[in-house]
């Protein structure tokens, strides 16, 4: 799975995700990617793209939950990501990249790795695979 989220100079947020699914998947199996609110979501609060075990991401309506947690709990993007990864999903289930309405970026996973990268207009740049490198 691949995905991207962005915050532009006019303050707009967008999210996009694309995938080939899971290896050896059965006829008609659909994962989280095309399910708006599960693998892909954007509103006025945040834009989120997910990757991982699709069935688990769907059960927890994960991308939408991150945005809702921010909106209704007045939480930060990092706090919302920690909630879904630690309180709802199980270890090894998923990873997310997200950006909020102030341009804050968060990229977190509870898997051993996630291919990821980020950049903002201040020049803050990250290109990583594992948690610690």
């Amino acid at each position, binding site marked *: *799975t*691949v995905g*991207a*989220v*962005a*915050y*532009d*100079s*006019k303050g*707009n*947020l*967008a999210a*996009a*995700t*694309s*995938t*080939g*699914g*899971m*290896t*050896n*998947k*059965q*006829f*008609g199996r*659909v994962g989280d*990617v*095309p*399910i*708006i609110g599960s*693998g*892909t979501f*954007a*509103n*006025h609060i945040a*834009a989120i793209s997910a990757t*991982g*075990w699709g069935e688990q991401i769907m059960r927890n309506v994960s991308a939408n939950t991150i945005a809702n947690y921010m909106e209704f709990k007045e939480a930060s993007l990092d706090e919302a990501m920690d909630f879904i990864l630690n309180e709802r999903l199980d270890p090894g289930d998923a*990873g997310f*990249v997200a*950006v909020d309405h*102030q*341009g*804050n*970026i968060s*990229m977190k996973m509870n*898997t*051993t*790795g*996630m*291919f*990821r*990268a*980020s950049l*903002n*207009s201040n020049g803050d*740049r990250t*290109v990583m*695979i*594992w948690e610690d490198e």
Partner: protein
Amino acid sequence: VDWAIALHGGAGTISQDLPDSVKQEYYEGLEQALRTGELILRDGGSALDAVEHVVRSLEDNPRFNAGRGAVFTKEGKHELDAAIMDGSTLGAGALTGLTTVKNPISLARKVMTDSPHILFSGEGAETYADETDVERVDNDHFHTERRYEQWQRAQEEARAITPEESIHDWIKDTKFG
């Protein structure tokens, strides 16, 4: 912060023992996709344009499980899914089970902007593509030898599952993006 972008190329069990040459290919793919988004956003482009073109870059990179380089289904084919969402309007477009669209994310954007619907599936998604100018390819376009070998191993492992072993355990151990 005037603009910001983040991207991923899948998550899962990724061995730290990857050969340096393979690691380098992944890093270069991520850098290339990041550069694509940077050029759009730095020049005042929209978040929607940025995420579409970043994902296209990753779809065209055979290292990642999307577009060319997508994994194989049980039947030995490739079925692609994609979705895009505009946070400023709640506009959304999505497709599942595409087999001949080179860059599914661009068709998802057309679903969002040109149709009154959000999600098309399977044959309907292909028919929707027929009504657009998106680039089409044979399903073999998505084939890579690495994914083919993964698929062959996955088939052998699936055949080895015992009745006592839950399919969910197997999926959990093999998921990748």
